[in-house]
């Protein structure tokens, strides 16, 4: 027995999906969706749940994470109800819903998010100011600005914080989507499913590739691979610093990885920035401010990374340290807000895919 809550769809409209009420339940969106399957079909069921305000159904659904917003559903919707837009809106809704202590609310409210980002930035600057030193202006040595130990400790603290939060929020999500109820999963299947998702979806982005518009898939894949590369490069540099020597020539390897991975990442982020700016395709017609902040941060993170290297080569020391500080601030913000912003799809989506995989196995 469900009761109707017609306020709910109004609430969802804060996150986009303004036209969803126009839906007349023809099922075209579900049927055109290349990712929708017989056992796991969306988005119409989500539309229905939203219009009727069946929050349980929405809270317990993984569907928002399985959608890549190819936009075909919205392109062909006979009522112009933008079903894809709803899936995005529901994602935003769920990020809030699953976040610890509703912290994500801060970032999803236009008003409070301004303060949050300012405070975070100030915090980062303050951190550098407190824990850092005045850098060595004679040569380029990032560690002269902020010590290896500080970085190391900060990094570890951030990672522990992140991992705890991630586990907690994934736990919240799985509980919410009834992921734990099905005790019938076999352990071996779970593991296999995990690797399937890791290789097929995280690394190859197979589902994304099923969208009609392949350019988005390529851009996203570039971004993912670029990011993984950059991440590896950063970690490796720190590892070499920590365990070998800050002067080790080995550092050339992560440097090259970094420069090479930066390129696809730049391509990907520019692509999305451009598309969102142009607002032509359905998925880019409407951008929530959180979408903008996320993509801009990513872009700035990579850009500041490149600026670092450019300054280093051009021996523009001041520029180097400023970029370094900027890079640190942005990376800090990205990492620290990961569980509460759009970035969190990095953790939710693989889990959702994994759960969906296991569900299909039943």
């Amino acid at each position: 027995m469900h009761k109707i809550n017609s306020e709910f769809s109004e609430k969802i409209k804060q996150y986009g999906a303004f036209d969803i009420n126009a839906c007349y339940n023809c099922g075209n969106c579900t049927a055109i969706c290349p990712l929708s399957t017989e056992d796991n079909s969306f988005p119409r069921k989500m539309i229905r749940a939203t219009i009727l305000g069946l929050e349980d159904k929405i809270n317990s659904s993984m569907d928002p994470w399985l959608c890549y917003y190819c936009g075909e559903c919205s392109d062909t919707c006979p009522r112009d109800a933008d079903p894809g837009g709803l899936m995005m809106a529901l994602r935003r809704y769920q990020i809030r819903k699953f976040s610890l202590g509703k912290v994500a609310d801060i970032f999803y409210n236009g008003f409070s998010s301004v303060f949050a980002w300012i405070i975070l930035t100030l915090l980062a600057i303050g951190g550098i100011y407190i824990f850092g030193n005045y850098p060595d202006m004679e040569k380029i040595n990032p560690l002269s600005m902020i010590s290896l130990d500080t970085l190391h400790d900060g990094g570890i603290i951030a990672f522990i914080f992140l991992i705890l939060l991630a586990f907690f929020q994934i736990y919240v999500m799985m509980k919410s989507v009834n992921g734990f109820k099905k005790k019938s999963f076999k352990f071996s299947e779970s593991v296999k499913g995990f690797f399937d998702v890791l290789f097929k979806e995280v690394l190859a982005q197979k589902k994304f590739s099923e969208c009609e518009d392949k350019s988005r898939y390529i851009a996203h894949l570039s971004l993912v691979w670029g990011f993984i590369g950059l991440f590896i490069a950063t970690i490796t540099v720190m590892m070499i610093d920590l365990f070998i020597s800050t002067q080790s020539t080995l550092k050339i390897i992560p440097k090259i990885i970094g420069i090479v991975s930066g390129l696809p990442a730049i391509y990907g982020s520019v692509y999305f920035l451009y598309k969102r700016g142009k607002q032509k395709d359905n998925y880019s017609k409407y951008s929530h401010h959180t979408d903008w902040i996320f993509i801009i941060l990513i872009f700035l993170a990579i850009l500041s990374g490149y600026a670092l290297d450019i300054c280093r080569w051009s021996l523009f020391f001041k520029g180097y340290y400023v970029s370094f500080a900027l890079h640190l601030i942005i990376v800090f913000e990205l990492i620290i807000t990961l569980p509460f912003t759009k970035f969190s799809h990095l953790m939710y989506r693989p889990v959702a895919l994994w759960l969906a995989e296991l569900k299909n196995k039943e």
Partner: protein
Amino acid sequence: MFHLEYDVMVVGGGIAGQETSLNLANMGFKVILIEKEPSIGGKMILLSKVFPTLDCASCIATPKMSETMRHENIEVLSYSEVSSIERIDKKFKVKILKKPKFVREDLCTGCQECEANCPVNVEDQFNFGLVGRRAVYIPYSTAIPKTAVIDIDNCILCGACERVCPANAIDFTQEPEYYTLKVKSVVLATGFNLFPARKKPQYGFGMYPNVMDAMEMDRLLSPTRPYNAVIRPLDGKIPENIAYILCTGSRDVSVGNPICSQICCMYSIKQAQLLMGALPLADITIYYIDIRAFGKGFEEFYQQAKDMGVQFIKGKVAKIEEIKESGNLKVRYEDIEGSGGVKEMEHDLVVLSVGMLSNPQITSSFKTEELELDEYFYVKQTDPLINPAKTNLKGIFAAGTATGPKDIPDSILSAGAASAEVAAYIRSLK
């Protein structure tokens, strides 16, 4: 034969135009009927049978057509177009272009000897390209006037027709003729255009031969059927499993037509019933959003189809894929009321129940004023509740599907209404 002045000019010789002409002629008005095709009859004459009574369309249409043609108060100009309408005082000066048929109507006996000897083959527009026709042709066996016409764009000027014509009716010297007439009133019964199914690329119409539109299916089922059987256009196979996709091009903003065409549900149900008769072993599935069986006897007709075993599935088909080896088609839909979820079903023939679009071509003929259209380019009814045939222009009336989608009974009623309004208008001029 030709008066220079008429009481009424009716534009369009479909069922609404004929009915309007006949009504007015029976009241004693002089009517000139303009039809752009070589034969009057419009779309109805091409149909097989009509819902919900399952009368054969020709049985209803042909007597009306011949009565129209024969009526002493009606002058029919076929293969003609209205090129201009100008208001002069209380009357209209209209210019009509009579396209050359290159066949003398007064001599042609309709023996089709020319057709038998013409070497050219082009797609037959009255069979929607299912078969070919000659460059000289009679549109269909029930055509009125039943005289041949030469499609000069496709003619290779071999002269075979001219040589064999026993009546010496071929005349290549014909030129376009312009007539200037005075009329007191004009009725626009210009009908509708079929939704071009190609505009819905997900359905593969034009790409997959076994995806056809419903008008083609109606031709396959009609007494003058081009295949003499219901078989697939791909390979001539007798289909066993036929799908209907309703709302193709209707109720669909993505193709720019959010309104309902109001006939597709019923004609699909009709075709399903006819197919059950023609192919007793075939399975028929109708994919629908809402079944709109609203007219007199329609709901009962729908229930009858259900009882006959036609399967109705709620869900709009989103796309169709062809299976290469068999030419069969896989349709993808959400089984909303069934088990739920996306389903794929294989059919060996898919019929797209295409809707109606407006045919606003006539607007360009108005030279001294502008005819108002509605949002979807149908002629706007300015007083739909009380004077349904009235347009924004005094003396210009509309009937049939010119003002919006209608089925045949409603078109006929609207023609009746238009004739009453025209009669009142002309009387008011005195």
